[in-house]
């Protein structure tokens, strides 16, 4: 029997975990709780705040999240555009070292400029973003940033935080209840609310900065020029207050702050990779032009 399984300790640990989460370690020490107990409680606190979804649950949460995004606006119905983004995305996903993720990339038919990810390997860019970026390295930077959100489970953790109704924690129960009623589609509704809430309020600043750092690394690993993502952020900086950028700006730290963080992390560490990097391809320019001709969907 481990220490944390003893009922008495479990209560103490939970209490300590709550106090720890509230940042009150000093009070605990004063109350005579020793360093080791604090550490054990810390571990409990970490596991409490961490995502513990099973692969099946993660898949259900991802499906519900993607379903909401595509409910707001559908995919671009063009096989050439979609397979292009899946190949570029697939190449970038190889640089993460994660072979267990079921990656699916999609271009959403919206002129709003944005990109999203969802648990279980969903990555989306909008048509508006595809025609706003200037070259393939810039698109690679954006896709790699979203891939990083999936790898680091940022969306899953954010959804748990916003899950006030218990939609995620009661996932198993909800699924069982509605199992006979055409499976996940009914069970997904409370999840849909959490997803809606999350996509309209965004992730933590720290998650965005981490995804920026990893995005630059993944794109550079794939052979792209390391400055694709910084160039996109510069482009965003010039678009503050522009039509079509509202949600992007309200859900992310300012481009200036993101560049400042990237500047700190990158320094000149990646300059050595610049010389033998790829910045663009003919295929990208063709796909971008084609995307520019796709009409917006009617309501």
């Amino acid at each position, binding site marked *: 029997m481990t220490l944390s399984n003893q009922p008495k300790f479990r209560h103490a640990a939970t209490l300590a975990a709550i106090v720890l989460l509230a940042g009150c370690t000093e009070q605990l020490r004063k109350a005579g709780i020793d360093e080791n107990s604090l550490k054990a409680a810390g571990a409990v606190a970490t596991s409490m705040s961490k995502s513990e979804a099973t692969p099946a649950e993660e898949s259900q949460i991802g499906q519900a999240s993607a379903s909401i995004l595509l409910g707001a606006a559908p995919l671009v119905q063009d096989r050439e555009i979609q397979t292009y983004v899946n190949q570029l995305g697939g190449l970038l996903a190889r640089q993460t070292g994660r072979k267990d993720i079921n990656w699916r990339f999609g271009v959403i038919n919206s002129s709003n400029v944005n990109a999203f990810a969802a648990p279980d390997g969903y990555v989306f860019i909008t048509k508006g973003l595809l025609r706003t970026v200037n070259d393939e390295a810039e698109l690679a930077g954006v896709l790699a940033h979203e891939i990083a959100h999936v790898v680091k489970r940022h969306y899953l953790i954010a959804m748990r935080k916003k899950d006030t109704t218990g939609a995620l924690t009661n996932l198993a129960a909800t699924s069982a209840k509605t199992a006979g009623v055409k499976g996940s589609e009914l069970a997904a509704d409370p999840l849909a609310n959490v997803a809606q809430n999350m996509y309209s309020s965004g992730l933590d600043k720290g998650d965005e900065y981490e995804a920026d750092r990893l995005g630059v690394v993944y794109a550079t690993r794939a*052979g792209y020029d390391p*400055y694709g993502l910084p160039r996109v952020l510069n482009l965003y900086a010039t678009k503050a207050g522009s039509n079509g950028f509202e949600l992007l700006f309200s859900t992310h730290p300012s481009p200036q702050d993101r*560049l400042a963080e990237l500047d700190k992390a990158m320094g000149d560490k990646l300059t050595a990779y610049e010389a033998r990097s790829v910045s663009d391809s003919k295929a990208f320019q063709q796909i971008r032009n084609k995307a520019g001709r796709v009409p917006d969907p009617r309501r």
Partner: protein
Amino acid sequence: MRIFQNPFRLLPAALIVVSCLAQAQSAGTLIRAAELKAEPFADAAALVNLPGDAALTVVDSKGGWSKVKTQDGKTGWVRLLNVRLAAGASDTSALASIGGVIRTGTTKSAATTGVKGLSKEDLARAKPNPAEVRKLDAWRAKDGEINRFAAARKLTARDVPELKP
């Protein structure tokens, strides 16, 4: 004057002219002292030493370099991360909103034009669309396709350590 009788006839031409002129003309500030280089290379000739808070206009970018114009009219290259652009600095931003409406009728006007989008309002209105999610499976890239994609661009994978904050 007859030319002004229908000013809207001139609008498309005016938009093109303005958008060409305004391409990537963005106000920025140098965040640390740097050499203004003649070309976008580390070993290119230095034209002048710029002070850490120099006001610049960014006119282009290439890889990790920004092409800038100094206040006294010199043009050259500095490292992209050494320049911080002002918010909404581009001359094209006002135009982009006009152009956006004319071209696509999106975002703010979405409610009135009946166009779907991905604004906060669109998200709030959204109903799950699982049929659309299922389409993604058909477009997934196979390993061979990804290999060919990389080979066509001569992309070579390399080791790059993760960056610390």
